[in-house]
């Protein structure tokens, strides 16, 4: 950076005299805000969320595994260490354990896993009043949230369910047991709701996919796959450009799935996006989270693609279920809890070389055209309206 101002020199002097703030983004950095929470499962700040995604959707090569192991210090599958058991109502039961069980099912969305885990809390609870139950749930959801701060849908799922518990007035008039079973029922249904949401989004987006169009997709997203699948079933003629989706190569997985559906697919390396953008008619991406500004948080590279698409006047469509709406408002890329993951470069990297290991980026709303959600097709600014109505 080119500094013109004298005040920067002042600043620099200060930094020199005082201890420089350690660069938190290097792999070897000390744990950040999570350090003070009870259990800190990922000492290297490796995002469990992105680990799971990679495990489910990624095409993992053996050398990647080796490097990942080296970086994490153990096999990625047991990144989750044995938790110090969260005592819920005096009985050994861990929400986080429960959650991880659910999370390991590839077809289950993260939020659904969270809510199922909370349902398990209710089931195991020995509370006798609604208030007690609420407090227990609150504790459980807090520990879930702090366990993986990088997963937005986990947070959003917990919040949604808590909101249902605290705000549903019908619960207050029932006796405790029926209220409890109602909550469990609701939680069980949530998986269905999530699946339905995907269907709705697929239906809504059909109007936007026209014959002969070229769609660029980035990474692997269940919703986007559903959209494309539905379009193929509707006998639409279109072709798909898949980015590779480094480092976990989720794009390969998507291209495999699409090839099975006989959709013409072309694989691009991530850096070929701008090169092929002029052939593209629309960009379709999923989202890990939709934030209050109307922007999205998604796999690394989405912002870049959105920028390219915006400068070439191509529409960028986002498919996201409404339970991914989160009360977050990042102002810029660094304004989020860092979600890191190991990256495989195929060759050993000298230790002096820094590696940018962030797993996600934030795409500001002005680069998005429309959001397809189960609430309907929204412009980015509506997201905040929905969130205000949902959470306030």
């Amino acid at each position, binding site marked *: 950076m080119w500094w013109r*101002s004298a005040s920067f020199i002042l600043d620099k002097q200060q930094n020199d005299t005082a201890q420089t703030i350690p660069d938190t983004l290097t792999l070897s950095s000390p744990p950040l805000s999570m350090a003070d929470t009870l259990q800190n499962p990922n000492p290297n700040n490796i995002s469990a969320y992105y680990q799971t995604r990679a495990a489910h959707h990624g095409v993992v090569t053996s050398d990647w595994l080796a490097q990942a192991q080296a970086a994490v210090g153990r096999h990625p599958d047991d990144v989750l260490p044995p938790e110090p058991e969260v005592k819920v109502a005096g009985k050994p039961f861990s929400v986080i354990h429960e959650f991880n069980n659910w999370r390991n099912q590839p077809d289950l969305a993260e939020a659904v896993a969270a809510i199922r885990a909370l349902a398990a809390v209710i089931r195991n609870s020995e509370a006798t009043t609604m208030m007690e139950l609420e407090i227990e749930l609150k504790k459980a959801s807090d520990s879930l949230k702090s366990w993986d701060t990088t997963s937005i849908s986990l947070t959003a799922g917990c919040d949604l369910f808590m909101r249902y518990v605290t705000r549903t007035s019908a619960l207050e008039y029932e006796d405790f047991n029926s209220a409890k079973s109602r909550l469990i029922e609701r939680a069980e249904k949530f998986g269905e709701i999530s699946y339905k949401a995907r269907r709705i989004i697929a239906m809504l987006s059909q109007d936007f996919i026209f014959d002969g169009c070229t769609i660029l997709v980035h990474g692997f997203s269940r919703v986007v796959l559903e959209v494309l699948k539905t379009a193929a079933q509707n006998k639409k003629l279109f072709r798909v450009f898949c980015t590779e989706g480094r480092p976990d190569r989720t794009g390969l997985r998507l291209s495999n799935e699409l090839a099975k559906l006989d959709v013409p697919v072309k694989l691009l390396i991530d850096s070929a996006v701008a090169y092929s953008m002029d052939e593209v008619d629309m960009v379709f991406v999923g989202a890990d989270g939709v934030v*209050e500004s109307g922007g999205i948080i998604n796999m690394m590279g989405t912002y870049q693609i959105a920028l390219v698409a915006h400068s070439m006047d191509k529409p960028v469509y986002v498919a996201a279920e409404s339970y991914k709406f989160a009360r977050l*408002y990042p*102002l810029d890329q660094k*304004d989020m809890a860092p979600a890191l993951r190991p990256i495989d470069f195929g060759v050993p990297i000298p230790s002096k070389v820094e590696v940018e290991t962030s797993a996600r980026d934030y795409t500001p709303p002005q680069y998005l055209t429309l959001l397809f959600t189960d609430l309907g097709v929204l412009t980015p*600014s509506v997201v*905040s*309206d929905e969130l*205000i109505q949902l959470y*306030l």
Partner: protein
Amino acid sequence: MEARRGWRAVPKVRQVGFFTPNEPPPPARTQSGPPDSNSPPLSNSPAGNSLSPVMIPPPRHLSDNLAHRATSPLPVPETSAFRRPIPGGDRVAVVGSYNPTDSMLGASPPLTSPSSRIGDGEFSEESSPGWFRRSNSAKFASSFPGGGFDLTSIKSSETLEVEVKKPVEVPEKSGVAGAELQTESQSSSKPLKAKTTKAERRALQESQRAAKAAAKGEATGKPAISSEGAATSKPVKQQPSRKKDALPAATSVAASDRKGVDRPPEKERKKEVPPPRMQFDDKNRVEKAKKRAVVNQTEARNRVELFRHLPQYERGSQLPDLESKFFLLDPMHPAVYKVGLQYLAGDISGGNARCIAMLQAFQEVIKDYSTPPEKSLTRDLTAKVGSYVSFLIECRPLSMSMGNAIRFLKNRIAKLPLSLSESEAKESLCSDINRFINEKIVLADKVIVRHAASKVRDGDVLLTYGSSCVVEMILLYAHELGKQFRVVIVDSRPKLEGQALLRRLVAKGLNCTYTHINAVSYIMHEVTRVFLGASSVLSNGTVYSRVGTACVAMVAHAFRVPVLICCEAYKFHERVQLDSICSNELGDPDAIAKASGRMDVNYVDNLANKENLQLLNLMYDATPLEYISMIVTDYGMIPPTSVPVIVREYRREHLWI
């Protein structure tokens, strides 16, 4: 940093402010022209009249704009010399224009209770109530001055006033006026297509003329009681006594009564081009306003041409004048008087401070208040508060946040249960005011500080402009949290408010840089966040704030630095404003002409009275939403496009607390 695209900002709000292309040209600012047969305020009225006489107002948003948009292009069927409006249409329009406030008031049946409509008038124009009469509808008939007004519009509004009242008042009507009114309202209740017969039209004109003649008769409006009584839903008997009470009271109260003068045409106009403020280039109204003013202001000699519609007065003379009058003005409560003087002298500034001072003064007023005999607390207190408000406006124009607070207070007064005794009522009002101050200002600030501090990271360079108390609290809080950051305070002449802030921050040990706005583009590249305060946030996301804010925000935007506006939600306003010209406040022009402490810079010293020199000292400006990344309010962090949602969702709660 994240500019928000302009096209997304299409909030659903009532049509406010500016002229839409398919509307007829706006009414001339002066009402004094010859009775124009094409008087614009009425031209869009005819369509709605298929609606029933006592119309239940449709939902808020639809009512004003839809009705009008739908109607405006329709041809006007009647064109007589006195182009009498088709009553039904007018009625719809009135209902429409009342609507937003009605729905804000909640349940009260919109047209029946005088107290609620007293409130109404104020509510809808709360940001500048002083230049608007107390909307004591009872005084309409009496208060029409003889000449100079656009007769048609007066008449039409008069008729509709009566019609609106009709359901309630029929049994109480008495006297000629009443009878005539009745015929008129009969004619008016006809459906649109059925043409009124000549005779009926004649009768109507007659009645209007009679009413006008009565009004002309006495400027004070005293003998017009008969028609006045007919026009109210109050029992006729009570009206005169109340009137008499009001009269001996000193100027301001009488003045506020007389403010009914220009109400009807105003109301007419409001639905089309609602300039809720006094336009100071309107000579007639300025004259009238002057007559009733407590504060004697002499107009500045060289008024800035583009800003003639704003009050521009000579400075310095009012304060001693008012101080000398302190013991003469018995109707003014000393607490209010004190606050007014403080506004005038500039001792209290800053949106929150002014609002709290005003509310506390009103609290004193309420504590000392006792209902005069034969009056109801609800009405009399509303009128009193109204007159105090207009006094405060004379001292300094209200901010929108104060307007919202006044709206809240009046609503609380109007909604007092009748069963309460006077002391209980006073008690409850005082605690309401306390609650408003605590919840909407003090607590809200705390929440904002929490939210905003989460956006401060170690190593940040925060820029702020001028002196905003919320921003100061944020900086101090973030400092207390042990965050490492540096502050850049950008300041500007003539107020140099930033220096006070700088002093306080430095005393607390923050690391500060101080610069003037001239250097903002130089300093901006090292800044990572811009925190700004706001006087109010408008429904289209525009931020109305201390002059210079827009400049800072634009520079920050150009440098891709996120701009955070910190503003309590009670300062949100449903108005839409596109520029900072049509409503603004003008400061003392001398302040910019003179450089304090610099004797050598005196180039304009003797030019103050030159005809070709106009000094413009604007106080506020409007920042469009695309330069704003985020608004931090007590409801959380929202994008500027979501302001209307907050306004819509919490308006009700805001009023009810």
